[in-house]
């Protein structure tokens, strides 16, 4: 056995560096402080346009904290059952909005562009995580008999992917609903890679959510369960999480090349050429532009 400190994200930011006693008295504040200090919650990535700042989801930050703390203890995070033995975990944040024309809100669509997922990596797990906000509707939940049934379907079929029961009394408390979408994601990837030349609008994965009263077909207004998406901060948005495992040793420079390619295709040729110049000239002692490019 080895002792490990797993930090719940509810720990107030003020005393994140607080000393966490261990059975063997080892003080963990030093290395935990390093981890917290190094994980910057908000990263301005498009320097010229701060509104495009990418805010990592709290779920991903807690994965990073937990697995890097484990590494500092000499534990290999990809052996964890919770990580499904994956060494890469990709999060796709929901950017959709509800169709408020239809009131009440019976169904929601969740659409994700998963084209950046490498096809060389094996998909070992996938889940859709949806945050159910607290609703003050205690009255109606007391009157509701039986359980709610949260159901998830692909957008273009009635085949149930996964479902969760929810006690009306619990429906007033906020919580994350985690729905397993591994099978459909695997089937989608297989189908996409065989026919991707036909897919004009890119590699999109679409889910549809509804909630019924027990096993009946009576659909509940999703707003009564705090599932409406309007006004959600970044940390409460739904995320699709894909767990993948790369077969051969992962080359750090893949991400570098991806980054440069994506910037070039976004039409920022001059800037990226200048950036590429700066990056490569740091390493190589080239005597001319051609050598530096090599």
């Amino acid at each position, binding site marked *: 056995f080895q002792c490990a400190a797993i930090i719940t994200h509810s720990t107030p930011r003020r005393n994140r560096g607080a000393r966490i006693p261990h059975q063997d008295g080892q003080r963990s504040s030093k290395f935990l402080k390093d981890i917290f200090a190094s994980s910057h919650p908000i990263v301005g*990535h498009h320097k010229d346009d701060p509104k495009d700042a990418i805010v990592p989801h709290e779920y991903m930050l807690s994965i*990073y904290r937990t697995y890097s703390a484990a590494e500092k203890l000499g534990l290999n995070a990809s052996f964890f059952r919770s990580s499904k033995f994956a060494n890469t*975990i*990709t999060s796709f944040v929901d950017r959709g909005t509800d169709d408020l024309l239809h009131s009440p809100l019976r169904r929601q669509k969740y659409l994700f562009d998963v084209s950046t997922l490498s096809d060389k990596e094996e998909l070992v797990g996938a889940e859709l995580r949806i945050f159910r906000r607290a609703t003050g509707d205690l009255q109606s939940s007391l009157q509701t008999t039986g359980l709610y049934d949260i159901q998830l379907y692909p957008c273009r079929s009635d085949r149930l992917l996964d479902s969760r029961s929810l006690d009306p009394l619990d429906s007033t408390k906020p919580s994350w609903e985690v729905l397993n979408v591994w099978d459909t994601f695997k089937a989608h990837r297989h189908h996409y890679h065989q026919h991707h030349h036909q897919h004009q609008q890119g590699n999109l994965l679409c889910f549809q959510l509804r909630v019924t009263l027990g096993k009946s077909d009576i659909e509940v207004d999703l707003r009564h369960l705090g599932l409406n998406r309007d006004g959600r901060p970044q940390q409460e948005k739904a995320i699709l999480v894909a767990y993948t495992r790369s077969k051969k040793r992962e080359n750090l420079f893949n991400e570098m090349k991806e980054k440069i390619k994506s910037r070039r295709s976004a039409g920022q040729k001059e800037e990226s050429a200048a950036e590429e110049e700066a990056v490569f000239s740091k390493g190589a002692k080239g005597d001319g532009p051609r050598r530096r490019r090599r």
Partner: protein
Amino acid sequence: TALSNRHGKRHGKKSKSRCSKKALHVNFKELGWDDWIIAPLDYEAYHCEGVCDFPLRSHLEPTNHAIIQTLMNSMDPSSTPPSCCVPTKLSPISILYIDSGNNVVYKQYEDMVVEQCGCR
């Protein structure tokens, strides 16, 4: 036999230190990678430095080939260079980064930190 006196000094020249693990602090910000790496922005990678001279210490876990090469080098330095001081054990680190689709990704990168050096 290699011509060196008891303190490892050869003809008055201070002898280089033996193959061992040395500090190497990597700063992704200085590498210009902080536009895609969220965390960590720096880490201790270490590196291996020093000579692999005769006789090789056991903690350097030499391969048989390295033992033979070191022996040949000590007998006739012009015949072959000494074996190399390289990492023999490495460990991974976790990196949280932004991919080309602006998605946040956690990845465990193998072989990022030197745990042990040796002669090979």
